[in-house]
């Protein structure tokens, strides 16, 4: 019985969260199609999401630049091929490592923020107070966050691409004797726009699914401080799992 419960409990949680995410997506889409989502609040959410994540993005992007530089310079030294360094750094930073780290940063910073805010609003009766006023809380509280996060993710990803490539360029110049002209010549010669677009699309997807998970979990949080804490923890875990699975599916799917 306990073994059955041990298997059944996570299955139930996954089913509940998946169902709540799907329902959240449908409600947000319905509200958007009926023009019930407040534009000002959506813009505000994009702005605060972007600002909230900006320092973390810069930090993570510099780190991404260093990682891809270390990897790329290994190939450059081994095969004496500095002309491909820029392409390797671009491919990795813009399409693979960059979007994944961006997704994880989004889930940690914004997913947790949205889950905490909504759970706290629910715990302190503010959600019910709005419902009692006749407000469609999904249109006013949930949909702006769901719409804003992919938009913010794309903007942050574009910024992250620039920072990580700049970081990779400087790192290779300082420690690998690969000049910026060589790096950017390689990017110009070998890189594809489709890689850049795939990276931005990945960031948008990670933002969307992080927002769906965070809002679904925040809106179904239990009352009290414990409920808020559990919602934040659960939102972070679910977002990370969803992002890793999505990253795998998109990377393998695109490569295949």
């Amino acid at each position, binding site marked *: 019985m306990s073994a059955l419960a041990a298997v059944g409990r996570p299955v139930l949680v996954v089913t509940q969260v998946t169902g709540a995410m799907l329902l959240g997506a449908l409600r947000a889409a319905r509200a958007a199609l009926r023009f019930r989502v407040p534009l000002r609040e959506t813009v505000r959410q994009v702005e605060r999401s972007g600002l909230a994540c900006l320092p973390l993005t810069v930090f993570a992007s510099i780190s991404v630049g260093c990682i891809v530089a270390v990897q790329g310079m290994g190939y450059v030294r081994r095969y004496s091929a500095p002309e491909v360094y820029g392409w390797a750094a671009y491919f990795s930073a813009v399409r693979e490592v960059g979007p994944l780290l961006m997704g994880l940063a989004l889930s940690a910073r914004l997913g947790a923020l949205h889950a905490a805010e909504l759970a706290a609003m629910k715990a302190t009766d503010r959600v019910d107070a709005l419902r009692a*006023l006749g407000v469609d809380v999904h249109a006013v509280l949930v949909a702006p966050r769901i719409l804003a996060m992919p938009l913010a993710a794309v903007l942050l990803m574009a910024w992250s691409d620039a920072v990580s490539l700049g970081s990779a360029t400087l790192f290779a110049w300082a420690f690998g004797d690969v000049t910026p002209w060589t790096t950017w010549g390689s990017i110009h010669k070998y890189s594809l726009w489709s890689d850049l677009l795939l990276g931005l699309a990945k960031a948008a997807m990670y933002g969307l699914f992080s927002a769906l998970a965070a809002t679904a979990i925040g809106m179904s949080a239990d009352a009290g401080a414990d409920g808020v804490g559990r919602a934040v923890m659960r939102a972070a875990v679910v977002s990370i799992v969803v992002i890793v699975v999505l990253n795998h599916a998109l990377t393998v799917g695109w490569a295949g």
Partner: protein
Amino acid sequence: MTALAAAGLVLRAGPRVFLDGAGLALAAGEVGALVGAAGCGKSLLVRALCGLYPSEGEVRVNGVSSRADGWEAVRARTGVLLGAPGLLDDLTVLDNVAWRLRRQRLPEDQVRTRVGGLLDEFGLGDAVGKIPAELSGGMQRRAALARALVSQPAVLILDDPTAGLDPVTTTGVVQLILGAARGRGAAVLWTTHDLAGVAARAHRVWVMRGGRLDALAGDAGGWAAELAA
């Protein structure tokens, strides 16, 4: 005229039944108090009366039915104050109170006039530009009460609106609520533990116990004796 009528209310939470087919009614301008032991389900009943908690039965506000016309129509005629003030942190007092009127797309000058007058009446004239975090607990409660009253509802439903307030603030909030019932002709349903202070001023008192909603007769002394029995 009956402002609030609820019939056949069945209220459950898991296996526990809080109400099993109960009903209540209040006329315009009447104040009704709802008492009962802690955990008896008063707050759930308040939520059920405005469609925030699933229940069986029907609620009518000024003849508008939750079954026939939907909860949105019922809520449009109801002002609600739940246990916590429930003000939005990012909005000023003015914006919090004006929220409902703006959603009704009233002209902004009318919104400001009406909200400004109400906030002055509630002693919040100097707090219009403040956010909730800058207000005391009593001021937040008054702002939430103003938000509930701003659209001139036919029924005001309040879940223990004086909980946690000091005696002076409690007296002020009680006067505001009773004034709202008298001056605006709203029916007020009020959950409370303060039998002598609040329920004594009510036209009707119900006690929630054993899955029933029993109307109490007589005065506060009689109620206390009946409740103790």
